[in-house]
């Protein structure tokens, strides 16, 4: 069966450290993978997109890697801040019929302690 797996346990880190979140998938061949941030009671907010032919993408303190052999993406936040505390979702563009459906993982909660 097709799965998108993110660590269900919250990640607790100290301010200033690098947070690394993992997204693993099985039985998909996505053209690209996206990362979103979701705050409690709010809609997801797009952060980064990385395509299957890209190994790494950066945006300010954010870095995403994409290994299609391992079927894994890593999401890094460097110099983390308490304001980075949120749930981070990965999403794959999954072929469905004649269309592509953005499909989300469960998300990993990040808590940055001052």
């Amino acid at each position, binding site marked *: 069966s097709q799965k998108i797996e993110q660590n269900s346990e919250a990640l607790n880190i100290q301010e200033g450290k690098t947070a690394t979140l993992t997204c693993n998938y099985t039985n998909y061949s996505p053209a690209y993978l996206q990362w979103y941030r979701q705050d409690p*009671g709010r809609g997801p907010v797009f952060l980064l997109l990385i395509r299957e032919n890209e190994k790494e993408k950066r945006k300010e303190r954010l870095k995403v890697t994409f290994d299609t052999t391992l079927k894994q993406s890593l999401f890094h936040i460097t110099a983390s801040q308490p304001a980075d505390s949120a749930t981070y979702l990965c999403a794959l563009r999954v072929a469905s019929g004649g269309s592509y459906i953005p499909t989300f993982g469960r998300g990993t909660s990040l808590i940055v302690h001052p």
Partner: protein
Amino acid sequence: EPEVTQTPSHQVTQMGQEVILRCVPISNHLYFYWYRQILGQKVEFLVSFYNNEISEKSEIFDDQFSVERPDGSNFTLKIRSTKLEDSAMYFCASTGTDNEKLFFGSGTQLSVL
């Protein structure tokens, strides 16, 4: 910055009643989506809409659900006869011509009693 607007933010209804959730997508966007999120669970795809018709729908989107784009701006989700298990946060999203980055609204929290 343009944003997706959803109304109402909260909706409480009795089981068996009809509800309509409303969304105003970003004005030049072409692809529209409804997702839902039950408390503590993942964001689940319901339906996608393009060129004035449904392009894909999930198993959740059964005959009790319908979508409409009644004019050039609004995009609605109707649940004809609500059930307790329909209680969730419902998110509308839209994308531009690339149909890649999803822009989500703030959601409508639906509570079915």
